[in-house]
């Protein structure tokens, strides 16, 4: 047999060095402890291999086509302004009001406002570097200690070593914050952006928080390597909405994890619209008795977009409840993967875990993988899952058309209706409307 020459494509690591870590740390004159953390994380990073399609969580998710020459270059701030961010994203969340807004363009803070209502309650909402200097104890206690650690994975270690910007939201014990917080990561250049979000709600605290990540589409690869940590202590209540609308040149690798204490509640909704490629780990740990966590997603890839949402609902204590609803519509030649695991530790009796994944396919070149999983070590639990994937229902479209709706409007109505049960969980009306506008844009697009 003739030997065939194969171009060996490797799972290449981005071209960073320890010198990059030192440079990022020096750029902002960081405190020593933070610099030390970065260097330790760098050692972990170097000791961790790049994930490959032989690793279970990456089996369906191949990123070998990324061009790290462009997607691995740190951004150089070039004078971006708040005005660069699309106006729709800058709108206040409730009528004219929001509690605070923190916006970054190319990793640099371009806007920071916090209403007196929030500062008066002792709420801290600022960029993570400033927080590390002004509130070192709070940051040290929670930053990469509870939710994500450098050992979580290769990209978590990279984020820990090299994060370029971040947000810190802190709500003190017992404070119920009425006005929502809002942050934006926006990039204008190709290259890599490493964002970190740390949210801490002390006992009995309560707030709504919206984060959005977005960029225009550029013609060379870019990347976002992110970490999100949500720490919801006993009796606290967090509603967290995150929207992703990167340009179609972006690769996102992110770890997002919440820890939920006794009788605490987390309602987490994500909308995934943009990017070229996403691998996001989304995890809820129900650590405290009586805690409740809900994770909801809408995703709508088109063109050749690829999205892998990898979820985990960890029941670590008795009497915990988790609920997951992920709904996707796929168009053109796009692909999605949802793999979700419900775990219950041996002591986690009387837990109730549910997960549902539904995909609506538009056309036969799309593909949606739906992989539910249970790992139950307790015996008195109720854990169930449901998943369904199918082509958009022609009988539904026909019915709508018999009422005079042209086909494209009938499809839009059916798709909107499919997403509505998730969108209804978003507490901000104008964000719901924007999501529907995204959907319309996607449906009208012809890529």
């Amino acid at each position, binding site marked *: 047999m003739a030997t065939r020459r194969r171009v060996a494509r490797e799972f290449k690591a981005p071209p960073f060095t320890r010198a990059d870590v030192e440079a990022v740390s020096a750029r902002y004159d960081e405190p020593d402890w933070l610099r030390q953390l970065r260097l330790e994380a760098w050692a972990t990073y170097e000791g961790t291999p790049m994930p490959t399609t032989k690793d279970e969580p990456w089996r369906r998710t191949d990123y070998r086509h990324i061009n790290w020459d462009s997607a691995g270059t740190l951004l150089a701030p070039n004078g971006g302004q708040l005005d660069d961010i699309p106006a729709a994203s800058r709108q206040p969340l409730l009528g004219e009001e929001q509690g605070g807004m923190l916006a970054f363009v190319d990793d640099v803070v371009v806007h920071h406002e916090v209403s007196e209502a929030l500062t008066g309650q002792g709420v801290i909402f600022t960029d993570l570097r400033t927080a590390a200097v002004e509130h070192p104890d709070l940051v040290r206690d929670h930053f990469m200690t509870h939710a994500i650690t450098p050992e979580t994975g290769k990209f978590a270690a990279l984020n820990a070593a090299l994060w370029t910007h971040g947000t810190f939201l802190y709500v003190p014990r017992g404070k119920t914050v009425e006005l929502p917080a809002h942050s934006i990561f926006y990039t204008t250049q190709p290259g890599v952006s490493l964002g970190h979000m740390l949210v801490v709600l002390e006992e009995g605290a309560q707030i709504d928080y919206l984060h959005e990540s977005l960029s225009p589409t550029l013609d060379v690869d870019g990347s976002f390597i992110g970490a999100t940590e949500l720490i919801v202590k006993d009796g606290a209540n967090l509603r967290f909405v995150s929207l992703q609308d990167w340009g179609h040149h972006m690769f996102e690798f992110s770890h997002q994890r919440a820890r939920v204490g006794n009788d605490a509640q987390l309602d987490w909704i994500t909308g995934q619209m943009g990017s070229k490629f996403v691998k996001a780990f989304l995890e809820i740990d129900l650590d405290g008795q009586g805690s409740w966590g809900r994770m909801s997603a809408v995703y709508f890839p088109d063109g050749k977009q690829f999205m892998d949402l990898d979820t985990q609902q960890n029941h670590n204590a008795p009497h915990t409840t988790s609920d997951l609803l992920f709904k996707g519509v796929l168009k053109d030649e796009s692909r999605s993967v949802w793999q979700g695991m419900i775990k219950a530790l041996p002591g986690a009796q009387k837990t109730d875990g549910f997960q549902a994944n539904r995909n609506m396919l538009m056309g036969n070149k799309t593909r949606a993988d739906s992989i539910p999983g249970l790992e139950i070590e307790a015996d008195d639990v109720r854990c169930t899952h449901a998943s369904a994937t199918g082509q958009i229902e022609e009988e539904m479209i*026909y*019915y709508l058309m018999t*009422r005079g709706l042209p086909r494209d409007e009938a499809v839009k109505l059916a798709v909107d209706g499919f997403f509505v*049960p998730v969108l209804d969980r978003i507490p901000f009306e104008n964000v719901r409307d924007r999501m529907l506008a995204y959907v319309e844009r996607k449906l009208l697009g012809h890529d």
Partner: protein
Amino acid sequence: MGAALEIRNLHVSVEDQPILRGVNLTVQQGEVHALMGPNGSGKSTLANTIMGHPAYAITAGQLIFDGEDLLELETDERARLGLFMAFQYPVAIPGVTVANFLRNAINARMKSQDPESKGIGIPAFRKLMLDKMDLLQMDKSFGGRYLNDGFSGGEKKRAEILQMAVMEPQIAIMDETDSGLDIDALRVVSEGVNTLSGPELGVLVITHYQRILNYIKPQYVHIMLDGQIAESGGPELAVHLEEHGYDWLREKQNGNGK
């Protein structure tokens, strides 16, 4: 004279299986026709073919509405010309409220008549919807429910007639709207239809039972058998069927054939 729906020598197949075998029928605006016939004889096939369901292939014949060749038109275009069908089995549209759906349907029609149209305003729409809901004695909360999603059989049928009332068609086909309605609901819905009818509305009532015809009084009754209109007559034909079933007609046909 108003618009007419003309069905001429219509032959229809599903997956190469002939179902309709030469149907002829004309419904004028202002007329009420009843179409009866045993299960599987092709009544719903006829209704769906008129609306342009993609599963039904027309192998011969013509469908004309108001002088226009329906075969050239998509389902939505036929609807906007003034044709309506109340489904025998309405389809659930989860996540889309009755109100949202109706407003979209009205706007689609307004936009096709005038591309510049901004659609119906919210207050005008609310009033229209509530008026029609009153007519059909429907609870106001109905507008906020997802269309046909979890509706009872009777609620679905009522929602079909609500749509008909809002869309104000010229010709409406009601495919077994009476089945699934309780006795009171049948009266309410029929009276609703009667309020809508007049010289502007032609109706084709598909039914198995004489009862609805006591309310919605047809001038013509047709009986479909094996994909053809086997008999046409006046209201007395429905009464006769109620008493005698279809056997006499089958026998008559066979007798003719031999």
